[in-house]
């Protein structure tokens, strides 16, 4: 009996936890995916919530049936087994076919979203993103703006073992870089992803998309943010010692601000502020994070 209570309590707790992830708490980004700020991230979020709720409903039914049997057919309550129930074509057919329909119903919106996600045509701005151990390089192919983006010094100091600095006192600990990627709002931005040494993955949760940056490959993803602001993410593919220390920070700014930003960051015809775009090969040894580069 105490077991029963424990089981029901456990089920209740699980249900409560699941309900917390519902749309009512979507703003509580501590425990759920966020709808993000792009068309794709919103679609992905809604797809995620749809599957989640389908799973919750199935779970309530299946777990309900299990709990019913556990509570109702206890030997301690004098239950007598009905050993004739060993097989039923009808039941087995039903619970084979119904899931197929549910799956098809989930696959259709998923496939539709996927088709939109993979359509990188008609982009208005192209940025080449190159992953290094352990930093990112951004190369605006249209305007020639080109820079590296490395973990901010404040985080880099605090994260050293025995630094004595409480991470809670550091602004955006591990999610701040020296040079932000800047993109315009309401513009279809295409990112071309590649890497110089090992595989990395570029991921900003608010944009919904994650894609691997692979040496020798050029992958594509697109972003069209409908909000301005600063959005943060991280490398998402294990890339060695400082995999956890190569964040991504993106400023989405108005189109006018972006045009201004490009003007001030364009390489002057003679002076070259960063390594030339075509020759970014920084030896892996120099890429060590301790040398928080000034680009």
């Amino acid at each position, binding site marked *: 009996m105490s077991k029963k209570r424990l089981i029901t309590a456990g089920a209740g707790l699980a249900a409560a936890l699941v309900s917390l992830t519902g749309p009512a708490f979507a703003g509580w980004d501590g425990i759920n995916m966020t709808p993000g700020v792009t068309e794709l991230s919103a679609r992905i979020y809604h797809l995620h919530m749809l599957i989640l709720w389908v799973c919750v409903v199935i779970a309530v039914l299946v777990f309900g049936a299990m709990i019913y049997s556990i509570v109702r057919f206890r030997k301690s309550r004098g239950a007598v087994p009905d050993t004739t129930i060993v097989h039923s074509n009808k039941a*087995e057919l039903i619970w084979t076919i119904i899931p197929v329909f549910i799956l098809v119903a989930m696959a259709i919106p998923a496939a539709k979203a996927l088709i939109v996600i993979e359509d990188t045509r008609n982009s208005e701005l192209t940025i080449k993103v190159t992953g290094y151990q352990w930093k990112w390089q951004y190369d605006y192919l249209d305007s020639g703006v080109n820079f590296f983006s490395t973990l901010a010094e404040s985080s880099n100091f605090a994260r050293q073992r025995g630094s004595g600095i409480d991470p809670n006192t550091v602004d955006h600990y591990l999610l701040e870089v020296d040079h932000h990627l800047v993109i315009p709002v309401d513009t279809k931005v295409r990112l071309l992803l590649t890497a110089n040494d090992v595989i990395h993955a570029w991921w900003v949760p608010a944009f919904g998309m994650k894609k691997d940056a692979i040496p020798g490959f050029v992958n594509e993803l697109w972003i069209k943010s409908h909000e301005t602001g600063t959005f943060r993410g991280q490398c998402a593919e294990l890339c060695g010692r400082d995999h*956890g220390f190569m964040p991504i920070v993106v400023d989405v700014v108005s189109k006018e601000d972006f045009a201004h930003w490009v003007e001030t960051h364009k390489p002057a015809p003679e002076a070259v502020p960063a390594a030339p775009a075509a020759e970014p090969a920084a030896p892996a040894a120099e890429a060590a994070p301790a040398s928080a580069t000034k680009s």
Partner: protein
Amino acid sequence: MATSHAHDSAHAGHHDEKPYGITRWLFTTNHKDIGTLYLSFACIMFFLGGVMALLIRAELWHPGLQILDPVTFNALTTNHALVMIFGAVMPAWVGFANWMIPMQIGSPDMALPRMNNYSFWILPFAFVLLLSTWFVPGGAPAGGWTLYPPLVLQGGDGLPMAIFAIHLMGASSIMGAINVIVTIMNMRAPGITLLKMPLFVWTWLITAYLLIAVMPVLAGAVTMLLTDHFFGTSFFSAAGGGDPVMFQHIFWFFGHPEVYILILPAFGIISEIIPTFSRKPLFGYESMVYATASIAFLSFIVWAHHMFTVGMPLAGELFFMLSTMLIAVPTGVKVFNWTTTMYKGSLSFETPMLFALAFLFLFTIGGFSGLMLGIVPADFQYHDTYFVVAHFHYVLVPGAIFAAMAGVYYWLPKWTGHRYNEKLGKWHFWLSAIFVNVLFFPQHFLGLAGMPRRIPDYATQFTDWNMVSTIGAFGFGLSQILLLIVVWQCVRGGEKAPNRAWEGAHGLEWELPSPAPYHTWETAPDVATIARGAEH
């Protein structure tokens, strides 16, 4: 009388004495001894892998780097996975297979006893080789257990050692699998047709075919890493015209069937235990067999769902999404069949049943998150986050590991001849079941909130759930000491267990005395014994 007859046949042969001392274990060709060796080895590796996990969780208690440097952290995640998969779960299943398959199909031993000995004794060497990488220049492999190039090729002297260790583990697994197949195909007692075999035997038969199919693929993949690193080939190097993504395709062509190698024997054990404690035959036996076979088949055509973010063509993503979702159908059939087995049964809740029920609930949760991960657009968010970590730990810990524990408690009376301490067993269960959820459920939240996996340090907003998870980890880890105590006590002594240790148990193993004599079924069980075993 069932008892006297079984006793006769068990002792009809010449002897029950066994060699003493260390040579008994070194040279044994007895399936029960080898089963014990496998299970003991798995237990040691389970605790070793567990200590690695606790170090990882201790570092993740708080943001900032406290006890580990990032390279050691990466080496720990890599080795935790390799030790748990190849050292704990797989050998545990081979241990169960050795102990139970001959007894369940009325065979005197495994078909190839000498190879049986060999396949076990390779394992300690393989793991000494793997673990000694911690002491060589360059340290232990730290590129993740998936060994993706080019990162893995940055490893030091540990890399070739780890590769040879994987070769050895693969050889051991293949030999074990061949032994299982040959035994099941050739040594069933007359009258035990394929569709009369216990489900544990069925799931192992299918698992063995999976092993033979994919372990050589893994061996090939790691050998290509070896030649890329030392002999100037460029299989996976873009600079030399190779393709780093090809490694991922080859690896996961092994890796996905491997996932089912880890879980199918668990399905078999659960299918033995739930009917026993429901006092009712398994519902839909044949559909269980077909569902297992379907899962095994599908496991070969879903591999790329582990790598949706590498930039596949749309058609490829759609294919792997749909094939992955299909797996939910046979898996659902299994869950529904287990649930219906309990319906109108007469349930009691001894420790094996408790673990089996926890498996049923928690494995299903892992199934749900698996389905979510299969939806490609959503996977673009979930991929390589703690959501994935939560998913595969739900199917492996309260999935595979709980099933192994259920199996240990279920068959301990048969193995040792004693009843284990039920009260301690239940303590072990409740602590494990509670803490495993404290440990892994919050990891869903962490993943959805944006925490990548395989990072030694994290942004401060992830602190709370990481703390909860770490508390769960230490609670779960410490609870496992109870398992050691229960098993130790039970081996040493205790109330005498009857032949049929569980009222509702069915199957040939329960027709044998407890403890099972050193040699069993030297004469194949007759039709009456088989019928008696089946009718329960």
